[in-house]
Structure formats: structure tokens, C-alpha cells
């Protein structure tokens, strides 16, 4: 029944999916936090930049961003992120770049929603003892905000896992591309779909359950 799987590297494809997810998650967490800091900061220009970034990036389809990073950055402008002529590596890195650019807008909003749950008194008390804006933000507000943001950030992570399939559009050998390939060559549509669907359920459902539990555990009881 599973004979047709021999010529295909299903686990390898899902490993690529996981790699895409983890690398983009780390990147977008860093860039998203910086964006959130800009958006709540005292410098008007940075606030404007953060707001503009989020509003622009959130409203462009991820597919456009990923396709642009391959056709625009790589093919037209020869930006390969240090991969040289190795098309596969370049596409992988560009896909990660595209995912970071897109996901960080949502990470920024998730963290901002976390910041909104921190009571005003926390920041006021921090200011009253003479902390500066950076100290208030990074020592008092963000640590509490992150704990409240675990839930929204989990949603972003799950969506990111699913969004890595968009990298199939530029030929990164991950699960959705493998599925497309298999479906075209083998006459086992339902079985193939079930395997791929099962793989994604294995990635997303535990993430949701585990991080959902973590989120409840670390949330500040108020």
C-alpha cells in the first residue's frame, strides 16, 4: 500500500518545513520585538516607521513577498544572501527572509497586545523610581508582556508553520511541493493527502496544545 513512497523523501520534506519554521520563528521574533519597541517608543519617526511597516506588510499576500524575493531579489537583483550560484540554498534563504519580513508584522502586533495587558501601575511605578524608557520597557513591561503574549505568539507560530508551504511557490523542497509532485505522478490522491495532512497535524496540533498549556502556566495571574 505504501510502496509508492519509496522514491520520495517524505521525512526530508517535513524536516525542511521544520527548518523553515524554526529559522523564520527566531528571526521574526527578534525583528518583531524591535518593531514593537519602536511602535511604543517616544521617537515619533520610529513610531511612524513601525506603524507603516506593519500596515503595509500585513496587507500584502505572503505569496507576493516570497515570489518577489525569488524573482525580484534573486533573478533580477542577483541578491542570493551568500548562496552564490546554488539556486536551492538561495531559494531556501530567500524563503526564510520572506517569512521573517511577513511574520514579524504579526509578532509585533502580538507583543503589542501583550504590552496592553500590563497594568498602567507597573509602568508608572517603574517611572516613579527613575527608570528610563528603555529600562521601563525591557526590565518591567516586556517581561510581563511576553508572558501574556505566549497565547497570541503561539497562534503566530502555528500560522507560520502552515505558511512555510508558500515556499513551494519558489521551489523549496518542503512538504507542499513534495505533495504536488507526488499527486501529479502517483494515482494515490487520498492516501498522499492523508499522509501530508497527518504530517501537518503532527506539527501544528502539539504546538498549539503544549504552548497553550505553557501560556496558561506562565500568564501573570491578575
Amino acid at each position, binding site marked *: 500500500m505504501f510502496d509508492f513512497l519509496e522514491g520520495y523523501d517524505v521525512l526530508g520534506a517535513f524536516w525542511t518545513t521544520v527548518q523553515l519554521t524554526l529559522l523564520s520563528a527566531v528571526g521574526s521574533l527578534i525583528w518583531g520585538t524591535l518593531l514593537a519597541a519602536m511602535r511604543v517608543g*517616544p521617537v515619533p519617526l520610529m513610531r511612524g516607521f513601525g506603524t507603516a511597516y506593519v500596515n503595509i506588510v500585513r496587507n500584502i499576500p505572503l505569496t507576493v513577498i516570497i515570489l518577489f524575493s525569488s524573482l525580484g531579489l534573486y533573478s533580477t537583483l542577483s541578491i542570493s544572501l551568500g548562496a552564490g550560484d546554488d539556486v536551492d540554498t538561495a531559494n531556501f534563504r530567500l524563503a526564510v527572509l520572506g517569512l521573517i519580513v511577513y511574520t514579524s508584522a504579526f509578532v509585533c502586533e502580538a507583543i503589542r497586545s501583550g504590552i496592553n495587558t500590563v497594568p498602567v501601575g507597573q509602568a508608572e511605578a517603574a517611572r516613579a523610581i527613575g527608570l528610563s524608557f528603555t529600562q521601563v520597557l525591557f526590565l518591567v513591561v516586556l517581561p510581563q508582556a511576553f508572558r501574556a503574549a505566549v497565547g497570541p505568539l503561539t497562534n503566530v507560530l502555528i500560522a507560520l508553520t502552515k505558511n512555510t508551504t508558500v515556499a513551494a511557490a519558489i521551489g523549496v523542497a518542503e512538504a507542499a511541493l513534495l505533495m504536488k509532485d507526488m499527486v501529479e505522478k502517483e494515482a494515490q490522491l487520498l492516501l498522499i493527502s492523508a499522509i501530508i495532512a497527518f504530517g501537518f497535524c503532527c506539527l501544528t496540533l502539539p*504546538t498549539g496544545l503544549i504552548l497553550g498549556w505553557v501560556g496558561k502556566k506562565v500568564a501573570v495571574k491578575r
Partner: protein
Amino acid sequence: MSKSVLYDAQGPRAKQRNILYTALFVVALAALVWWVYSALDEKNQLDWALWKPYLGGGTEAYTTYIWPGLENTLKAAALAMIIALPLGAVLGIARLSDHVWVRVPAAIVVEFFRAIPVLVLMIFGLALYAQYTDVSSDDRPLYAVVTGLVLYNASVLAEIVRAGILALPKGQSEAALAIGMRKNQVMRLILLPQAVTAMLPAIVSQLVVIVKDTALGGAVLTFPELLASASTMSGYYGANTIASFTVVAVIYIVINFSLTSFASWLEGRLRRRKKSTGAVLGVQDTTDIGGAAGTGTAA
């Protein structure tokens, strides 16, 4: 917490520091802009010939390529929304049922389709129509895109409906039961009408997700929508990839930004309204990038 709570009213030194930060940020931004400009210039991507089809006053590019593509995008999005809404309502209400044999299957269906990427559902749809139906190969991409979007969004909308109904005050259904209504009547006449209003902003912002996801059809399933027309155009107008993508991206931004703004306006209006119970499912309550599985809530 409002933004200003994080920092004090600025004195002379803080103001000076702000000016310094602003200046540094301007320099960084300018460096970025200059880098982008020189990269584009080096590859001759700023030649007027490449941008002329869009900015030169001619309408050919718009009438021949962009509008037909946009039409397909909007058609797929509208079809997906119209089919997914009733399905989502049924699934959402089924999840609230008192009967285990209704509640559990509905929950499984919803969680399953939310756990799977839309692209996988679309690829499945394309192969399904090709192998098991006689839908013509021209229509298949549209069918596949709409099928994928419906399966996914019906389950997201189901969560929105469920959250919308749960957001209503308990007194509503209690009062309805107290005057002798049946469960069915309570849902149909009392809860659903109020929940629909409460859900409107969330539904509109889900439309943004749908519009964005139609682009997948263009990139992977050869569905001739807006993004696909960008590739066609850059072939036709002489490799103006940057220009074509910029124009298409701007169109997406305009459509989605107006939808998002409409949703926020609607939300504000509903929140201010005095007649209602005050239950509103906001724009923030749907995760814009596509809900989440396993966490069990959309709100």
C-alpha cells in the same frame, strides 16, 4: 495601556536625545533607501521603459492584464466567502450543541481543517477535480482555489461564530428559555441575530485573509489572478519584474487596507452603539495570518 504611560513628559534633555535618535534613524533609513536605489539602478530596473506601462498614462496594462487578474481574485474571494459563511455557521453552531455526537465530529472537522495549510487543501482540490470529475481544465484552478479556501475558512468562521455566540451575555439565552422558547428558537431568534452583528468586524477581516490567500492559486495552481498577471506582464513588457510586483503589491495593499479600516470602523461603531448588549468580536480576535489549531479558540 496607552503609549505615553511608558515614558514621562519630555524635558529639554529628553527632547534633545529624541532629536539625536531621530537623526540616527533618518540616516539609517536614508542608507537603506540609497542601497535599494543603487541596487535597482545598477540592474537598470529604474529605466522609464520598464515603468511606463503603469505610470505613463496608458491604460493598456490595466485593462489587458491587471483588471482581468483582479476580477478573478475578487471572484474567487467572494465565492469562497459566500460558500464558507453558511458552512461555518452550521459547524460553529454544531460545536455548541448539547449532543456529544454532534459536538465532537464538528470539533474534529474544525480542528482538522485549521491545522492544515490552505495550499495543501488547494493542491488536493486540484487533483481531486482532475481525477474524479469532468470539470474542464480551464475551470479547475478556480474550483480548486475556492475549495481550498472554503474548507479552511469555513472552519475559521465556525470558530468566529462560536466565539460570537459565547460572547453574548448569558442572560440573553436564559431570558429566552424562561419565556418558554425551545433551544432551536433561542439559537435562531435570539442568539444568532445578535451574534451576527457582533461578528461582522471579524468576518470582514477574515475577508482580508481570503483575498491574500487567493494569491497562492496564482503562484502554484496556474489560476489567472492578480499575482499571476504580474508574471505575465513582466514577460510581456520586457522583464520589469520589480515594477510589475510593485504595482500588484500596491493594489493588494489598497484593497486589504480599505477592508481592514472598514472592519475597525465597524467595530468602533458597534462598540459605541447603545442598543446592543455590547458584545463585539473585534478585528484583533481573528489572527490575521490564519487562526490557529489546537488552541481551541479564535477569540
